[in-house]
């Protein structure tokens, strides 16, 4: 079992003035071109703004559009020295529903860990597909492709999932995230993505209640 409740972490962290040594490990799954790496990077910057130490890095396979890719994010209240890949994540974020059948997205997920997935069907169906009972995983789904297509006009789901991650975990406040998004993107895209993030954040907040 996890030694802490990741959802509760932010509250504990602020309450104790950051004295607990905690390392949160997040793994992102998706396909090249969807911004899997960017998702981890945006969260690294946003979490840093919240006072955490962060480290995000990609695992490049073949850097081709469409191929299944993975990126990693570590968040801690202490300087991060670990640079190995993440084998036992606390959270898994899935940006593309089609990788679920191709890659074992929950490989090594900590007992009681959290999966936040872009999945058009219900979380119950995803639960069956990835056999989530075994690891006692919490599952939250959002139809990110739909939101992305409606609001951005392209099936690029990274910002939706960034919002969903923040909404589900509360590791990053919405305002901080929107600020980061506005710095990251330029012009029209910044405003649109900020809306996307807000929508996903609020949606996840409801789901996780």
């Amino acid at each position, binding site marked *: 079992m996890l030694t802490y409740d990741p959802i509760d972490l932010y509250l504990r962290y602020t309450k104790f003035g950051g004295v607990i040594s905690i390392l949160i490990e997040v793994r992102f799954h998706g396909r090249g071109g969807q911004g899997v790496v960017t998702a981890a990077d945006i969260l690294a910057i946003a979490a840093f703004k919240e006072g955490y130490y962060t480290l995000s890095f990609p695992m490049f396979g073949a850097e081709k559009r469409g191929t299944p890719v993975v990126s990693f994010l570590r968040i801690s209240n202490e300087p991060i020295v670990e640079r190995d890949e993440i084998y036992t994540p606390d959270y898994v974020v899935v940006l593309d529903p*089609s990788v679920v059948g191709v890659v074992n997205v929950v490989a090594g997920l900590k007992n009681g860990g959290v999966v936040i997935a872009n999945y*058009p069907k219900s979380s119950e169906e995803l639960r069956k597909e990835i056999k989530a009972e075994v690891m006692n995983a919490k599952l939250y789904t959002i139809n990110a492709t739909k939101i992305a297509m409606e609001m951005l006009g392209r099936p690029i789901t990274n910002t939706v999932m960034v919002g969903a991650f923040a909404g589900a975990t509360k590791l990053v406040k919405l305002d901080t995230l929107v600020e980061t998004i506005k710095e990251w993107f330029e012009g029209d895209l910044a405003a649109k993505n900020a809306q996307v993030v807000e929508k996903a954040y609020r949606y996840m907040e409801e789901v996780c209640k």
Partner: protein
Amino acid sequence: MKLKIYLGASCPPLQSLEYKTGDWGTMHAFVDKEKCTGCKICEQYCPDLCIEVKEFEDKKHAVVDYNYCKGCGVCASVCPQGAIKMELKELFKV
């Protein structure tokens, strides 16, 4: 079982056939058999050689190999008959 590696990082031909890329894209190409004249322009433009004109009993028309089609849309854009349509995969339909 021991892993087999080829001497000197060499590689026999056609290994890439094992590497199915059909699940990469969000879209697939669909051929309208009625409109297709079998002119083979798509065949020449497909960067992955995964569309091919085949002879059938009544007529010849292009056939997409969905094991490898990445949904790039080149065939659809070069087809002079407008016989190829790009369609979103079922999974991505909203």
